[in-house]
């Protein structure tokens, strides 16, 4: 049964929402999660690639939601040269549909409650103060009161806007994406592939993330300010026709990935934003699952602490902001300025970069080496890269 009042209401039951719910509940808060869709994890708008080290702190690895284990990343430049990276740690291609549900189950195990097909409509305010959430459920408009709202409502987030937070991103800070799941392929199950170039994927890249040795998520993200004339699907269709002419498309999905820095404001009185809604996405890779979960774990803990202390004001909730910046927010800011560099990179530069990568023995390869080379000639950015690899160590209790 859904009660009329909870300490915390989380809007959105993706990885960020369910991790926030779990940590808030685990630390003593009563928590309700509202999920718009019929089940968590669908529709899957995700390439589904994550690192083992990124998700392991949050959930025991379970083969039910792992499609394949990735050991190698392959980068291909506009001129068709490829470089292999071996030593970046284990990665997985997930089954997000099952993974997201498993995270919700974990939140529920710690006491959080989930309602699906519950579409948030607005925040309830009293004298400008947020006191609850209005939502649509089973054909009726309902209200739930709470002290803290955690907005985990994704790229399409509106909850932050209802709270008066500026959440809009610039066109160059969103990647517009299409992804096919392809069947009938003959590929290496342990290798993720990335294709770069201004003719291939302007301001972004094409990815092939294998789900088995015959199926893969094959998608593209191009920068929003370069997508007006030709959209992402035209680029992807060209690529797929050349590379996999006989493949069958078993799934088609569209989506947008924010590639900005974290929003200026992710906390206000009685509300916190997490995950894609807060634009907590790696601006270079577009990866958001792990970043969202890390942010959400901090937000969930701060929410529980706020409930214990009866402090729901922005000043107190800013603990979340501070902790986030220290953990990854500052790094994301640096990554964002580096992304600007990638955004305007010539094909020749991409070719040189992959060429450079090829010269490093693949087991000695690191992202740091790659980024350092990418920003060569720009001393400030080079320093930033070095810094970003020092601060990005994540600690979790």
């Amino acid at each position: 049964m859904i009660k009329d009042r909870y300490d915390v209401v989380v809007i959105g039951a993706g990885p960020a929402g369910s991790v926030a719910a779990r940590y808030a509940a685990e630390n003593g808060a009563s928590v309700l999660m509202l999920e718009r869709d019929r089940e968590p994890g669908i529709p899957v708008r995700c390439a589904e690639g994550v690192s083992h080290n990124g998700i392991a702190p949050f959930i025991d690895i379970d083969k039910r939601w792992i499609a394949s284990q990735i050991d190698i990343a392959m980068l291909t430049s506009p001129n068709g040269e490829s470089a292999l990276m071996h030593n970046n740690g284990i990665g997985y291609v997930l089954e997000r549909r099952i993974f997201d549900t498993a995270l919700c189950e974990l939140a529920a195990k710690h006491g959080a409650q989930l309602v699906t097909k519950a579409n948030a409509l607005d925040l309830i305010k009293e004298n400008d103060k947020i006191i609850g959430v209005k939502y649509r459920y089973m054909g009726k408009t309902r209200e739930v009161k709470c002290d803290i709202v955690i907005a985990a409502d994704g790229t399409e987030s509106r909850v932050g806007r209802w709270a008066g937070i500026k959440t809009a991103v610039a066109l160059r800070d969103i990647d517009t994406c299409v992804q096919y799941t392809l069947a009938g392929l003959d590929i290496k199950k342990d290798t993720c592939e990335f294709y770069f170039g201004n003719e291939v994927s302007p301001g972004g890249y094409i990815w092939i993330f294998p789900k088995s040795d015959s199926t893969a998520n094959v998608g593209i993200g191009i920068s929003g300010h370069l997508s007006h004339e030709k959209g992402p699907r035209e680029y992807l269709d060209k690529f797929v026709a050349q590379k996999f002419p006989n493949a069958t498309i078993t799934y088609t999905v569209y989506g947008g990935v924010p590639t900005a820095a974290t929003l200026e404001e992710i906390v206000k009185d009685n509300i916190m934003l997490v995950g894609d809604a807060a634009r907590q996405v790696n601006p270079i890779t577009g990866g958001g699952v792990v970043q969202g979960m890390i942010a959400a774990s901090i937000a969930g803990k701060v929410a529980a602490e706020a409930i214990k202390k009866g402090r729901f004001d922005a000043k107190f909730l800013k603990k979340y902001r501070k902790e986030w910046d220290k953990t990854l927010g500052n790094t994301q800011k640096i990554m964002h300025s580096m992304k600007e560099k990638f955004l305007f990179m010539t094909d020749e530069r991409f070719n040189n970069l992959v060429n450079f990568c090829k010269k490093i023995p693949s087991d000695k390869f690191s992202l740091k080496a790659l980024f350092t080379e990418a920003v060569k000639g720009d001393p400030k950015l080079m320093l930033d890269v070095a810094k970003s690899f020092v601060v990005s160590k994540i600690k979790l209790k």
Partner: protein
Amino acid sequence: MKVIHELCDICGTCVAVCPVDAISVSEFIVEIDNNICTNCLNCLKVCPAKAIEEGE
């Protein structure tokens, strides 16, 4: 602006770039409120499904 519902995948990319909160999205539909919309064309430019056109 107008949503071509037949093409729309309800992904909400348009919402992220709307400077005035003119776009709402539910499980089933994306709608643009033309009373609020300023015709900046951001949504049309980024829509990955090319499901937005000018007009009311």
